[in-house]
Structure formats: C-alpha cells, structure tokens
C-alpha cells in the first residue's frame, strides 16, 4: 500500500489509526477547545469584594474600632475545616484507633500469654535502674496518666460522660479536667526534658538493633535475640516519647496561654497537633504498659525495686548482662589485688 508516496503496510496503518483513536479518547477536550468561549465580562465590584471577604484574599481584611484577635476579619473560613476535622474526622476515628490498639494488646495477651523468664528465676539480682531514674519514670507516668484521663474526658466526654451525669454535672467535671490539664501539663514538659537528659545516651541506635527489629524482638516464636541495656523496641518507644512529647509540649504551650493574642489558625493547628500526638501517645503507652507489666515476667520489678533477676537480664538484655557481669568481675579483681585474703578469691570465682 502506498500513502503520500510512502510504502506502508496494512498493520502499520492500523496501528496509526489505533494511536489516533486513543489520542482522541484521551484528549477529547482538544476538540471542544476550538469552540470560542463567550464569558460575560461584566465588572461587578460588589461580587469581587464579597468573594474576597469570604475567601480572605488580599485587602479583604478591614479596619475596626474593636480591639482583639483578628477583629478586622469578617469571615474566618478555616473555622468550617476545624469543625469538620473535630466532629467528622477526629473524635470518632480517635476513639476507634484507641479501641483497636487496646483490643490488639488484649488479643496478643490471649494468643501469646505472659512471656516467662526462660529457666525460671535464678534468685540472683542485678541493679538495673537508679533511684533517680525510677522516680523520674513514675513521676512521668503519673503525670501522663492524669493528663491522658483529663484529656480523654475533654475529647469524648460530651458523648460518653455527659449522657450519664447530665450537662450541669459534666460542666463541672470538664471544667476541673481543663484546669487540671493546664496545671499539670507544664510538669510533663519538665519530665520529658529530664528523660532526655538521663536516657538519651543509652537510647542511641547501636549495632544489633536492626537484627533485633527484623527478628521482631523475639516476641513471636522462641528465637533468642541479642540486645544491650535497651533493646530496639525500648529505643523506639523512648524516641517516640521524645517526638510526641515535643509535639504535645509545643502545641500545649500555645494552647495554655490563649490570651497572648495568637490568631485562630495557630490555635486550630495547635489543637490538631496536640490531639493527634496525644492519641498516638496514649495508644503507644498501652503497648509499653503491657510489656512492662503482665506481658513479661520480671520486667516490672526493674522499675519498682530497681533490680532484675539475672536470668531475666540474660534472656532479654544479654549483652548488657555480660557487660555487667564482666564489670563486676573486674571490680572484684581490683579489689582482690589490693587485698590478699583467700575469701575474696572465692567471690571472684563465683562471679
């Protein structure tokens, strides 16, 4: 076949036709664009002005004699987004999320049960946390639980607590929650800063963390995983506490002083960050509390007494255990070289 003097085979032509058809289907607008548009170009300053007012564009913000936050703004259009976020997106989904995480933790407990110390308790105990560290942990925990309970009451109370106690009583409860939340909030910032100073160094990523993560921390199955003083899971929780703590602290400081004149969009953003970070924080705390209490035998006593069983240490933090034992041996050796009595040698052998 010959086309414009070129020799074209039948399949080439059909391919060309098909490509043209596809192009036409993909861009049908190009065909319509040829029809000249005829907009009615009528200047209407009023329409433009009120549209600008509604959408807060350019010079739409005005002057007013009334002093206050954004008093010159006629219409704040972000308010509707804030309403939809809070009522449609946040409250319901936050409730579902917290419920699902609590359910998963429960399901895990039912399926896996408590993780016992392999080989049982040895009866020998090693020091794990100093008094200051334990005090700091429980200080953070108490403040956190208080803030979580008051915060959750303010978030879900209208739908959960109000129908039970009535609007008048819930008004008093909510008011107390708000005041308490504002009063104890700054203490949590202090706790997060102290946690960082005390624990950040030991939570830096180290060799073996990745392997620990790949093996799922040994929580599924019986495989033994190696770890130092803190395992990768604990490190992730620590840095989550830092990041989420920073988020709730900064947004909380913005929210706690509403009379400093922050514009509404800053407050909306702060509530957005504060709410989401807090819900993630609460959900994460479920996992932390579970593993630290009923999930693992012998874990809680590290934070109550400061000591752990040697077998627990060897099972969960073998490298830390080995270091501690080696250090104790070295200390005993030094002691032994200074003292020449046979009794000390016996202790060294034991260690």
């Amino acid at each position: 076949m010959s086309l414009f003097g070129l020799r074209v085979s039948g399949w080439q032509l059909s391919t060309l036709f098909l490509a043209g058809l596809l192009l036409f289907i993909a861009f049908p607008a190009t065909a319509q664009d040829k029809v000249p548009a005829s907009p009615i170009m009528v200047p209407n300053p009023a329409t433009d002005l009120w549209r600008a007012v509604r959408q807060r564009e350019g010079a739409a913000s005005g002057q007013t004699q009334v002093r206050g936050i954004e008093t010159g703004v006629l219409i704040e259009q972000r308010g509707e987004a804030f309403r939809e976020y809070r009522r449609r997106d946040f409250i319901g989904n936050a409730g579902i999320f917290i419920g699902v995480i609590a359910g998963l933790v429960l399901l895990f407990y039912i399926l896996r049960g408590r993780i016992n110390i392999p080989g049982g308790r040895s009866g020998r105990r090693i020091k794990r946390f100093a008094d200051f560290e334990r005090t700091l942990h429980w200080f953070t925990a108490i403040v956190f639980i208080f803030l979580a309970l008051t915060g959750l009451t303010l978030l879900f109370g209208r739908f959960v607590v109000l129908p039970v106690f009535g609007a008048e009583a819930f008004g008093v409860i909510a008011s107390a929650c708000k005041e308490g939340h504002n009063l104890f909030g700054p203490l949590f910032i202090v706790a997060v800063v102290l946690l960082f100073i005390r624990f950040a160094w030991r939570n830096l990523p180290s060799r073996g963390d990745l392997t620990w993560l790949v093996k799922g921390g040994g929580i599924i199955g019986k495989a033994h995983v190696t770890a130092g003083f803190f395992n990768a899971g604990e490190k992730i929780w620590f840095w989550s506490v830092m990041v989420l703590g920073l988020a709730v602290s900064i947004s909380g400081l913005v929210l706690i002083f509403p009379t400093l004149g922050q514009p509404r969009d800053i407050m909306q953003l702060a509530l957005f960050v504060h709410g989401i970070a807090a819900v993630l924080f609460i959900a994460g705390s479920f996992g932390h509390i579970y593993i630290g209490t009923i999930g693992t035998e012998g874990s809680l006593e590290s934070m109550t007494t400061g000591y752990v069983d040697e077998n627990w240490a060897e099972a969960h933090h073998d490298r830390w255990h080995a270091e501690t034992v080696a250090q104790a041996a070295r200390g005993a050796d030094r002691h032994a070289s200074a003292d020449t009595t046979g009794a000390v040698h016996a202790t060294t052998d034991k260690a």
Partner: protein
Amino acid sequence: MANMKFYCDAERCIECNACVTACKNENEVPWGVNRRRVVTIKDGEPGERSLSVACMHCADAPCAAVCPVDCFYTTEDGVVLHDKDICIGCGYCFYACPFGAPQFPKAGAFASRGKMDKCTFCAGGPKETGSAEEHRMYGSNRLAEGKLPLCAEMCSTKALIAGDADVVSDIYRRRVVNRGASVLDWGVNYDKASLRAPQSVKGKASSDG
C-alpha cells in the same frame, strides 16, 4: 415561630459604631468583651464598605458542633444561646465560628480565659426570664419584652435589621428593587466604556430599569 436573623446592609452602614455602643450599654458586657463590631473594608479607598457583625445565630451553628460540653442550644425563635454554668472557656467555639462572635473576658490569677460571652439577640439566657441574675450573666432579654435587639432598633440609617428572617429578607428585597442591584448598575454612571457586556444583555437591563 419566628426564625430570628440579623442583616447588615453594606450600602447603608456609615460606620458610626452606635450599635457597638448600644449593645455594650444595654447588656453591660464585661470589660474587653464586644458582642458586636463594625468592620470597614477598603477603608479610605474607592468602594469602601462597612458591616456590623455579631453572632449570626446560624441554623447549623459550628460553635455548638465543636463545643466539648454541649453548652449551646437554639431557642424556638432560632436564637443560638449558651449556658455559662456549663461553659468551660476552652475557646473551641471561637476557632470554629466564621464571624469571630464568641468573646472571652480575662479571668483568674494568670489572666486565663473566662466563660464565653456572645451576642444573645437580646434574648437573655437560660436563667429565669427577666431576673437580675439573667441580666448579670447574659444581659438584656428584650425579646421577652416584645422588643427587638437594641443595636438594630436604634441604627440611624437602618442598615442593621433584625427580626424574623422572612420580614428581614422582604425589607432587603424591596430595597434592592428600589435602588437597583443589577450587575450593570455598577460603574454605569461613571464609565460606560468599562462595560464589556454583550449588547444583548445590555439592552435587557436598560429596558428593565
């Protein structure tokens, strides 16, 4: 039952702020609280317009939707009110309101936010109607006395209208008919050349006028 609404006619408002003053005086609102304010846009420029704004008593009020303690309610006259005994002063209503209506007096040792205060359409509050306590907490209850909000009642140019939505919209409709609100009226007195409307549309508008 009536469905109470405010309307502010931007073609009439002269930014005298008398509505603001009348409201403050009638309702004896706390220091720093302004239930009504006049906003002037394009101040000192061509096309300057002023509007008096307060709570617009929305049919589907965003403040009521976001309130964590559900202290808002709508009266049978369509007026959005709130209960200060329940309000915790969290400010969420202020963040959701498009008109910036909710106001907060400073209270407490650290100048924190007190209970919210806003325009009540001069309809008092949930306390006993006409009681001293109602006036102290919520201001005047003119609606119970058969009167309309004072801001609108004393507006010198009748820019601010308050009342049943049907009546308000009827008044505004008549005004529009009388003074003409065709899009073509804008600028036609000043510069006919600036009018770029097709001839067909232009003919229709002039025959109507």
